[in-house]
């Protein structure tokens, strides 16, 4: 992951592809550390944003991350 001030570029070596992430998506990716579940990530983002997210975290970002090979989904301790 190569960051700039308002986003980052993620390189996926297995696919030899790059993906351009805005600040919100970069923040989500940083929380995708294997310890945070979807619900926890949502709560942390809402705390950062100071209100409810205006988009569906799973379909709006996480599913795209998974389809792009940026993250791999697995069940966390909180079950999400």
């Amino acid at each position, binding site marked *: 992951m*190569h*960051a*700039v*001030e*308002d*986003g*980052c*570029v993620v*390189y996926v*070596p297995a696919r*030899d*592809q*790059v993906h*351009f*992430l*805005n*600040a919100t998506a970069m923040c989500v990716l940083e929380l995708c550390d294997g310890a945070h579940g979807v619900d926890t990530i949502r709560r942390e983002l809402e705390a950062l944003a100071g209100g409810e997210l205006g988009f569906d975290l799973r379909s709006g970002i996480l599913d795209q991350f998974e389809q792009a090979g940026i993250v791999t989904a697995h069940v966390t301790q909180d079950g999400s």
Partner: protein
Amino acid sequence: MSIAATDALHFSVRGLGVTLSADPPSLLGPLSHLAVHARDDEPVVRELRFTLSIAGPDKLRVREDDAADAREVCCIEAALTGIAQRISTRALALYADKTCLHGASMSIDGRPALFVGARGSGKTTLMLRLLLDGAAFHGDEYVLTGADGMAHSLPRVLHVKPGTLERLPAVAEACRGKPRLQLRWDNDFYPLDPTDLGHDWRSVDARPAAIFFLTPAFDAPPAIEPMAQIDMVRELMQQVIGIDQTIGRQARDVCALVRGTPCFGLRVGDLDATAARVCETLRALPTASAG
């Protein structure tokens, strides 16, 4: 850079020593349009030699180095275009550890800036306008960058399109008598060296004070707006030249270049007004360190 004219032309392009020779010597005249007069501090690490000769009534022969096989071309324009491309290719090969971007660079009041945009966005015409206004010209086509985020200009003669001549009479005067060349993927152009206009030309290594992304809107007023760095990274990734490197390394280098650098979207409108806006924007920024 140094040039000596005897029976051959010699110059250097950031570490690549180039010798152009001709048989008969009268062919040196056309070859002189390819000479790059940009100064730099790089020691020559590789030599490249081209010999242009007559192969027949309607044929010229171009021999690179001392290769046994030579290329035959139909006319002087084809010979010059081919040699110019080979010089750039060989010079770029010296910097295989860098990411090469299609972009221009020049400094205004000591502030180096990069200008990128698709072909036809008005980059060369704007560079020439700024050059005539006293900006320090570094390069019009190639910018090399690496993990350190420095921008290194690699010189190539300016490719001046016929449409530019109508807008800049001084450039038209300098292009008078020059051959009109054409690349496969580009429009006709005149090869112009900034020194033809009486201006110095120096390659530099510097952190840019700003990066401008050009979009053409020649009938509209110019506009400069701050641009998100991630959007600039995306645009710059479209301007990477060469496919030898991994895209991951290109992303690393481009991000290093953009990180911490003010980025602007530049709508290129009226030429004089656009140049004025660029100067005004750059002068409002702190100076960057140039090498």
